[in-house]
């Protein structure tokens, strides 16, 4: 980059616009995906910096409920060149343990992370990008968006109709039942989040009603092995998005109804009903202070049961073909989801329900990305992570390239492929700026960028 371009940032005024440096690649977000990409870039000796608004693994530190554990067993929790090193390979990491794991990875890879550096804007700057932060601007030729798929909770517009006096909370703000008023709780959403919250809130003595739309039902353990083992071993998690009939739909599939507990217990609607949770249909409306639930509960449960059984069929076929490795317990089938004789269709909010919890999903947040890369629904336009702007990449979204793309262990294959694409972009003269001494010599003006560049020398 030319220094004038860096300097031009200063005309905007205050000290915060001071240029922090130039670098080939800025990775935004020091979670597992951003750090994995950093590792790949380091291996290719591509200079880069990882900008992190808080601390490494920030969302795991600040945006998770207390009891959350990974849905995948520890042995699966691995990043490029780094695996689980503890003594409980079949256990599931708590959020705190995930923080430790990702932090250890950052140290292990000597990742060039600048913490407490929040990106405020990404804008074009000639044929480069300017990444503005609250601690100065960076100029770069490529940007990797690794801020995660769960930056913002999705709360439906129905929330506006919830009567005043009924407290509302998103799953992102929820920490534990003690935070809630006594009395009934309506949990909206039946993914892993909704079911886990419903269970612990019900067990806290607050009667829970769970509103259930389309969902994914899975047993925790099947034929003696973790369900994730089967999906991993049989290649289900490696399925590529280009092999999927309806990629948009595949990317919207909610997380399966799973929980990671020491007892490897299954968590499904039958379990919750047994514990006293009232299961109702999708929240379809709120009128006169009453929540109205869809009459589609039976069908969404039938769809989930059918889909689970198809998966188990395919696992059984695979186990047959791969005996004796996979020959463990006998094939099993589970009781259909029970919905009761006449599921409730409405519920008075206020009297019967003091709190509504929106477990209705999450979305990424690219509000700081000032580039024409969004479709009419506001979603990022990309082809398997290659965003619709030269040198711009995204990581960690559901089914980005493979079913496992949003899993921790899914980062490796994606960053290897996208890292190769990125390297080709940097090396391509048609981008106007071949890699050469000019860019390679650039250093940050306040010294922080030099930290970034040291990463080239790290060993694997």
């Amino acid at each position, binding site marked *: 980059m030319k220094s004038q371009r860096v300097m031009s940032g200063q005309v905007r005024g205050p000290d915060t616009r001071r240029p922090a440096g130039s670098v080939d690649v800025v990775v935004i977000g020091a979670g597992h995906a951003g750090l994995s990409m950093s590792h790949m870039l380091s291996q290719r000796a591509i200079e880069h910096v990882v900008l992190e608004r808080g601390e490494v693994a920030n969302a795991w530190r600040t945006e998770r409920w207390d009891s959350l554990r990974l849905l995948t067993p520890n042995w699966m929790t691995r990043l490029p060149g780094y695996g689980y090193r503890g003594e409980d390979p079949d256990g599931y990491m708590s959020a705190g343990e995930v923080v430790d794991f990702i932090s250890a990875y950052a140290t292990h890879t000597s990742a060039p992370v600048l913490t407490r550096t929040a990106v405020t804007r990404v804008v074009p700057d000639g044929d480069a990008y300017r990444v503005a932060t609250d601690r100065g601007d960076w100029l770069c030729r490529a940007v990797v968006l690794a801020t995660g798929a769960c930056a913002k909770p999705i709360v439906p517009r129905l929330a506006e109709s919830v009567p005043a006096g009924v407290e509302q909370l998103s799953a992102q703000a929820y920490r534990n039942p003690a935070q809630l008023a006594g009395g009934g709780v309506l949990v909206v959403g039946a993914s892993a989040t909704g079911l886990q919250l419903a269970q612990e809130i019900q067990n806290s003595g607050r009667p829970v009603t769970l509103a259930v739309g*389309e969902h994914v039902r899975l047993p925790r353990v099947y034929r003696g092995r973790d369900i994730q083992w089967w999906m991993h071993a049989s290649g289900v998690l490696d399925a590529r998005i280009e092999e999927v009939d309806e990629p948009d739909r595949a990317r919207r599939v909610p997380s399966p109804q799973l929980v990671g507990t020491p007892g490897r217990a299954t968590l499904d609607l039958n379990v919750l009903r047994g514990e006293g949770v009232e299961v109702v*249909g*999708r929240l*379809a*409306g709120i*009128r006169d202070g009453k929540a*109205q639930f*869809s*009459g*589609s509960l039976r*069908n*969404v449960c*039938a*769809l989930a049961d*059918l889909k689970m*059984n*198809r998966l188990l069929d395919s696992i059984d076929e695979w186990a047959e073909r791969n005996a004796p490795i996979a020959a463990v317990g006998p094939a099993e089938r589970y009781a259909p989801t029970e919905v009761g004789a*006449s599921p409730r269709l409405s519920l008075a909010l206020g009297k019967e329900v003091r709190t509504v919890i929106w477990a209705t999903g999450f979305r990424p947040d690219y509000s700081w990305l000032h580039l024409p890369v969004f479709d*009419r629904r506001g979603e990022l336009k990309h082809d398997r992570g290659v965003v619709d702007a030269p040198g711009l990449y995204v990581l960690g979204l559901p089914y980005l390239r493979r079913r496992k793309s949003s899993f921790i262990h899914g980062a490796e294959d994606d960053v290897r492929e996208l890292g190769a694409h990125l390297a080709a972009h940097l090396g391509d003269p048609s981008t106007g700026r071949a890699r050469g001494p000019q860019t390679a010599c650039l250093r940050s003006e306040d010294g922080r960028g030099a930290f970034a560049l040291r990463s080239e020398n790290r060993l694997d």
Partner: protein
Amino acid sequence: MTTQTKTAENGVNVAALLGAREALGEAPEAARFKWRASSEWIKGTHSRATVDGFFGLGGEQKHRQAYQFCTDHPEVFASEDKGATPVEMVLVGLAGCLTAGIAAVAQHRNIQLKSVKATLEAGMDLQGILGIDPNVRNGFDGIKVHYEIDADASAEQIAALVAQSQKRSAVFDVIANPTDVTVTTSKA
């Protein structure tokens, strides 16, 4: 299902449906339809409804011909029974919608249908519409639909067809979920 080389023939143009989905995904305006019916009172509880035109694909459309439907109440209600009861028409709509969906999904999944028979039953407590008990709703207290299907498919595949059809059914949605209704009047 075992490998099937024959293409199922259920009389559904799936290619056109998939093409429409693609095209309408790109052209959201063309996807906005308005369905219409008009109705005229004949006598007593007997009315005659007509469907003819509708709006969609960005313009006015017409059925191949106008269709008329009479509704009335049965003789046990001291009416003349000149047509189906309006609530029965709701069941007719649900059956038509779900069955059309089953055919389309079967075609898409290359499942040959041989027969598809539905029986529908809706419970209703007349204490609602007669105003005897304010806690009883006017409408159905539940709808039961049973499909008997003969097809080149397993029982699970048939169950999956019916489940997928419900998931994508407009009338199922209209019945199972609240819909805002606006009724206005004018003096002729």
